[in-house]
């Protein structure tokens, strides 16, 4: 069975079986990542271009490592996505990319819909590595993989996503993915950071953090992204930390075995108290580890298109024999 999608533009296009398939494959690749020799020859000879028009060392590095562990040739291109008059237009960027005949383009861009724009204009697969406030599908996949590892399931879990929901592509992709996999998602934040109609995506709006934490299996704290805010949405970070921050005083409201997540980078002392970020419930570094495995799974399915055995270590070699 081939993966029924040419691109990964968002979680929106993925069904529950698609998601499960990616998560299963990520588990396989996680195992590879824990071997002494982490490289498999699956995508040898394939070119992956990481086009990052918005700064994100973390995500770019994760994609780069993923590509390299699959033996693809990974090239990083960075630029400024906000250039309008000066600099190259996205159309010219697309045409230049196309001329270089890559197999996969991984795009991070500040404008929502940019991966869709590129996907319509190039012949290769496009992976959305975060577009504006729209989606960040690989982040949601790695979050789901992490949750599944710690909780053994996603179906039936209570997940609280707290922070600036309005400007968060991580929140959107997670709401879609988690609700599609059977979790119940609550979103919480100041009224200025709760977007209109978020319920239609599959979330319940909770106004107070205490209520959001109450009985939660998973607590996902979002970074307050000041640079995205067009208008002042909160008086200051001090009041925000007191009202919407997670710390020792309120973390106990969640279930005793609840896990704490954050897509990073953390504003320590703002949305997350260091004691919780570094505490025993925190799975933040597992998220980073899964980031590479999930991106390997995505690149593998879009770049190779040949199913691997999910029985473990033979993933790469199986695929190679058949390619």
């Amino acid at each position: 069975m081939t993966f029924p999608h040419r691109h990964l533009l968002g979680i929106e296009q993925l069904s529950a079986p698609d998601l499960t398939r990616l998560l299963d494959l990520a588990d396989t690749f996680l195992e590879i990542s824990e071997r002494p020799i982490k490289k498999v020859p699956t995508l040898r000879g394939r070119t992956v271009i990481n086009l990052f028009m918005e700064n994100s060392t973390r995500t770019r590095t994760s994609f780069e490592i993923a590509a390299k562990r699959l033996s693809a040739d990974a090239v990083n291109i960075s630029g400024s996505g906000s250039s309008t008059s000066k600099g190259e237009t996205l159309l010219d960027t697309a045409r230049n990319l196309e001329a270089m005949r890559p197999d996969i383009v991984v795009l991070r861009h500040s404008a929502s819909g940019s991966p869709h724009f590129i996907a319509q204009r190039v012949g290769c697969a496009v992976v959305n590595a975060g577009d504006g406030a729209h989606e960040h599908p690989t982040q949601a996949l790695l979050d789901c993989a992490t949750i599944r590892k710690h909780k053994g399931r996603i179906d039936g879990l209570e997940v609280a996503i707290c922070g600036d929901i309005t400007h968060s592509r991580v929140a959107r992709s997670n709401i879609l993915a988690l609700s599609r996999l059977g979790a119940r998602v609550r979103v919480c934040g100041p009224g200025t950071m709760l977007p209109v109609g978020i319920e239609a995506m599959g979330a319940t709006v909770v106004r107070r953090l205490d209520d959001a934490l109450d009985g939660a299996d998973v607590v996902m704290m979002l970074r307050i992204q000041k640079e995205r805010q067009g208008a002042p949405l909160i008086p200051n970070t001090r009041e925000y930390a007191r009202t919407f921050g997670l710390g020792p005083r309120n973390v106990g409201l969640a279930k005793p075995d609840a896990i704490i997540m954050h897509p990073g980078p953390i504003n320590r002392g703002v949305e997350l108290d260091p004691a919780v970020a570094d505490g025993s419930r925190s799975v933040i570094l597992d998220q980073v580890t899964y980031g590479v495995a999930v991106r390997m799974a995505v690149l593998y399915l879009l770049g190779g298109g040949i199913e691997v055995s999910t029985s473990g270590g033979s993933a790469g070699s199986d695929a190679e024999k058949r390619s």
Partner: protein
Amino acid sequence: MNYVLRDGRIIDPTSKRDEEADLVIENGRVTRIGRGLRAPAASREIHCKGLLVTPGFVDLHTHLREPGQEYKEDIASGTRAAAAGGFSTVCCMANTTPVNDCRAVTDLIVRRAREVGATRVFPVGAITKGLGGAELAEMAEMREAGIVAVSDDGLPVMNAELMRRALEYARTFGLPVVQHCEDKHLAAGGVMNESASSTRAGLKGQPSAAESVMVARDLELVALTGARYHVAHVSAAASVRLLREARKRGLPVTCEVTPHHLTLTDVVCCGYDTATKVAPPLRTQADIDALKEALADGTIDAVATDHAPHSLVEKDVEFDLAAFGMVGLETALPLLLGLVEDKVITLERAVYLLTAGPAQIFAFPEAFGTLIEGVVADVTIIDPAARWTVQREALLSKSKNTPFHGRAVLGRVKATLVGGRIAYDGSGELAQPGEGKG
């Protein structure tokens, strides 16, 4: 050349005529309407059996882009597109380069329109110099040169004191003030309507209140000044409600709606097609329902296109960066006839909204939008049964930024006459060699 339009279904909302009859055009004017009329000397017969014969359409809201942005559109191409859409009169907005804020620019547009225009062109002057929102433009002199209204369209007049003075000053010259209602603080950075769709698309929305708060403010200023006020491209349910109440209070206010705000919801923006990016933004189904109700009950007086041509330079970019606007002259009629087919409005009402309705709003020098004996022969001939598909390449406008590409529609303009001359001939039958060179 004189014409006899034979056996067409003549629909004239002003005279309440809706019957199969002949219409005789002599020396650029409608001279007789009736059955079995004798053709005058040196005339051609146009067989209109099965076709609709209506007054020429009047568009209150067109961007012809000349002077200054001729790569998007010019007076020649824009009026050709207008004639193809059934319009015999278009009112061009002031946001050209330079801005139409003084007599010299008005004169230029009027002269160019006379030289190359396929239709009548009436300029709309700016409210403020350079659309700067700070000082009043020279309305008196522009009025002498031929403007029929004033508007800073594209930009709202944010300053309430200035808006009050604009209303008072324009009233002196009998000019309606046309407002593009958009509170710039509420709308700041918004690229589509704020709704569940903008949330899903991750695009910054403008709430419909950005429009309606300015409508509400302006209506109070109208009450203060008694001036004629017209809301351009009304799009929000709340705005319509305010306007309906204002009409009940007897305020001298009118409004127009575009075909696209009646037919597309903001859901289409989720595909990031920049042809759907328009100001005001496409709204929700609830807004469309309110607009349709207002269209039927008389709160809305006119359908206007807000024909806003943009080239690929402005449109083949990220949604966030794309220019606002879509072309509309050539799709207005079939989109409106779609509402007739859906029983939202009657055919007679649809014709009114394109003709007599708009013709009464601006300060035109003549009676347009009606077919009675003696009026200028601005006539549109329509095949109401023609089914066709909108093709962006086939548009006569220089710009192709339409979200209706590929849409199957019903009803098509066969011909448009302006002052008794054929401005558009869709079938090519009217300009056969050896005939009618008069």
